[in-house]
């Protein structure tokens, strides 16, 4: 009981910052640059860890609660999902709702912390964050319904269980659509291109990055770390869905899972390199289109 939990947490905590590193490297490679070293996110975190704080005199304790919730939630949520073939350490019937709502809690506090600074800029980011997630949430639930229909339980452990390999043979169409939908939701929720641009802080078009503009020092580090963890946790779902192999050997399973996560990071890097950010009014349309795709996937499984 304790050992798998420890392994789960260690994997998450130590592997997650590598993913943004891989994404940046891929983008640099596409642009013909050398780019920052792969391990740069680790160094960044270490640097921020050592720094001090700067607070605005407008802020209250809510401003400090934002990063705390943003860091704790992905860690807890990771305990509910399987990492590749490794089972989830904590699983019960209906934990899929808890998984979704935990991220809702994180969103609440991140957006509230943004409003706490009293800056119109961060208010803008908060609006966009909560608005777009309203449109992304139904997609997630539709995707989960499709997966639940193909499985035999209501725990994420069952939904992403070993039956997926079989299901790909008979139900490839809905599963393929679900993968696309989850990938898009992952891009939205982790504020990647084409929905958001994580690299520019100072444009009026950004979402997540403007919300965390006034954080500094270890708090900023917690936010960066939290978003890396979130990327890995959400990525784990997509990876498990696309590579549903159970070899029975721990090291091979691990290798498949981590390899999948790295491939996913490279894929995100490629998407970010070849696509431009969508215009703001297009994003809701895109998200509603994604929801309709997931509805279509559900219709295919209902027949």
């Amino acid at each position, binding site marked *: 009981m304790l050992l798998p939990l420890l392994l789960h947490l260690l994997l998450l905590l130590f592997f997650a910052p590598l993913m943004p590193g891989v994404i940046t490297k891929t983008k640099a490679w596409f642009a013909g640059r050398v780019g920052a070293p792969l391990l740069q996110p680790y160094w960044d975190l270490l640097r921020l860890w050592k720094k001090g704080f700067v607070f605005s005199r*407008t802020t*209250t304790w809510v401003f400090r609660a934002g990063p705390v919730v943003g860091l704790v939630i992905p860690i*807890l949520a990771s305990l509910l999902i399987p990492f590749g073939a490794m089972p989830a350490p904590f699983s019960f019937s209906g934990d899929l709702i808890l998984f979704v709502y935990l991220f809702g809690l994180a969103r*609440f506090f991140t957006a509230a912390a943004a409003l706490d600074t009293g800056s119109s800029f961060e208010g803008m980011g908060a609006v966009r964050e909560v608005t777009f997630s309203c449109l992304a949430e139904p997609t997630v639930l539709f995707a989960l319904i499709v997966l*639940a229909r193909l499985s035999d339980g*209501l725990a994420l452990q069952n939904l992403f269980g070993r039956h997926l390999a079989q299901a790909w043979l008979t139900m490839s169409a809905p599963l393929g659509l679900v993968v696309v939908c989850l990938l898009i939701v992952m891009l939205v929720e982790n504020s990647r291109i084409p929905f958001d641009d994580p690299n520019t802080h100072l444009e009026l078009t950004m979402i997540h990055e403007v919300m965390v503009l006034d954080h500094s020092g270890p708090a900023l580090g917690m936010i960066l770390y939290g978003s890396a963890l979130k990327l890995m946790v959400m990525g784990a779902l997509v990876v498990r869905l696309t590579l549903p192999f159970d070899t029975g050997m721990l090291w091979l399973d691990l290798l498949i899972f981590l390899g999948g996560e790295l491939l996913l990071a490279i894929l995100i890097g490629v998407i970010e390199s070849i696509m431009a950010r969508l215009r703001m009014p297009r994003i809701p349309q895109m998200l509603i289109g994604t929801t309709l795709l997931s509805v279509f996937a559900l219709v295919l499984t209902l027949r």
Partner: protein
Amino acid sequence: MPILWIGIASLLFGLSGVPGLCLRRNGGGGALLSSLMVLAGSISGSFGVIRALQSGSSSAWQSPWSVPGGRLALEIDPLSSVFLLPLFLVFALGALYGHGYWPQRDHPESGRGLRFNYGLLAGSMVLLLVARNGVLFLLGWELMALAGFFLITTEQENSDARRAGFIYLCATHTGTLALFAMFSLLGAETGSLAFPLAGTLATSGTAIFLLALGGFGVKAGIMPLHIWLPGAHAAAPSHASAVLSGIMIKTGIYGLLRVTSFFTEIPPWWGWTVLILGAISGIFGVAFAIAQHDIKRLLAYHSVENIGIIALGVGGALLGRSYHIPQLVLLGLAGALLHVINHGLFKSLLFFSAGALIHATGTREIDQYGGLLRRLPWSGLFFLGGAVAICGLPPFNGFISEWLIYLGLFQTVQGSPLPVSLILLAIPTLAMIGALAVACFVKVFGVTFLGEPRSEQSLHGHEAPKSMLLGMAGLLVSCAWIGLFPTSLAPLLSSAVLSWSSIPTASLSGPLSPLLLVGVCGWVLLSCLALVGFWLWRRSQNAPDPVSTWGCGFSFPSPRMQYTASSFGDFLVRLFRFGLWSERHGGRVEGVFPAAREFSSHTPDTVLDRLLLPSTSGAAWLFQRIRGLVHNGRVGLYLLYVLLAVVVLLTATLP
């Protein structure tokens, strides 16, 4: 005898305002006495409910009655208990809160009437919840409606309050009319006006169901029938709004559940109707809430949303009975009932803290607030707790009930035929309602409590008095209790479901068992947050002196540049413009050096202000025209009417 204790509670509640009426206007003695009586009533009532639950069997009392249509019958069963428990808690805390919020010396005109009607509302509600006779039920129902009307019009000098009260009176009496018809039909079926036992009525009952849905739906505020709700809850004093919104509208849900429990067979379309109405109420309730900038109107629309969530659970349970899925019945109804309790708690908490805001600043306009967490730290904390709970986020109670409803709806996911599995479409709807609620409460909490004060009033805001804070604290603790110890209510819920519909007891224990783990998750979440938060707090102790927030490159940033409630909601309001029809005035900026511009937006209620009032005023105009034609003062014409009437009567009576 538990029912006796509850009867005493009802009497104590109902009479709690009477001594105050006889005492002096300016003295505080009447207020104190009435609060003590409400408190005593709550304690006696809770004692009765707990005794009844412990004994396991329902406790009843009957006596002959001179009114036609059966005997005077009272009974307490688990279904009534679910509605009674939050009632006792919230009314007691509300009385405490009222001491600080509406003190007799500040309101010599209205204070005594407010207290009298407050007690009457509580007493009549207890009566109707334990009544087992149609006449007695309607008696309680009418008393409740009238007490509610006087609570809404407490500030009679205010024209908004009078208008809201009038609309409420019209709506509630339309509903009562439907209920009169419903109870007569029911009486014709069973032969007496006493309530039949659960599951004993083997008729189709289409008309009964439709009348019940209409009559109880008006009270509950299901979407197209919600017209009275936003205005009324905004106009009443905050603790009265809290009990109106948190407790009174639930009697509609209670009535619907009580009536549906009579039938042996439930046709599927009943469940579908309730489910669809629930989805509409949920989505549009919260969409309207986002568009509001009056804090109490906003909270009132959230009541519509939460009634929608409850209706989703009830609809699921009805469908579970039609399609014989016991887990769906159990989880759907248990979720709906728990949400009834939860909404009573967190909505009252939110109205209480909104009252603290009004107490501190004297305005209900969200755009006038700002930066109040520094000035009202405790009220802000309580509001935050209520906001997290109403959004259905862990670790508070809202999550538990929404989780149960979700899980119930998910029961149809594997291997059910097509029409049944369409129930699944309610799940993403519920998810969207949740996400919209998060958006709305981020807006309210952020704009109200965070940032810089936007007006003079909120700059000089002050914390609420102790009695108000104590009332809020009690509610927050109960919210957290249900969220962290959800198993403590599981036996009550499952026995309530059993008293509504007899499902096989074998399916009772399994589906509810993960509640323990959900509670554990809440504890883990809370302790992790506390740990990391404590660490960050320690680390930030030696931070240098605070600086001002970066002004986005603007040289003279002012609090007016912050995002307001309207601008925060604008994106979502525009997404929902097909149902909201917001009015927007001005805002167009022209030229290179634009002059000062004004922009305002306003979202009236679509059903009331755009549909009902125009059509009624159109009808009034039409009738006026007709009256002008037939009632024109010529004597000959009136004689013609007499002649015509005689002829018509003669022809009608001829064989």
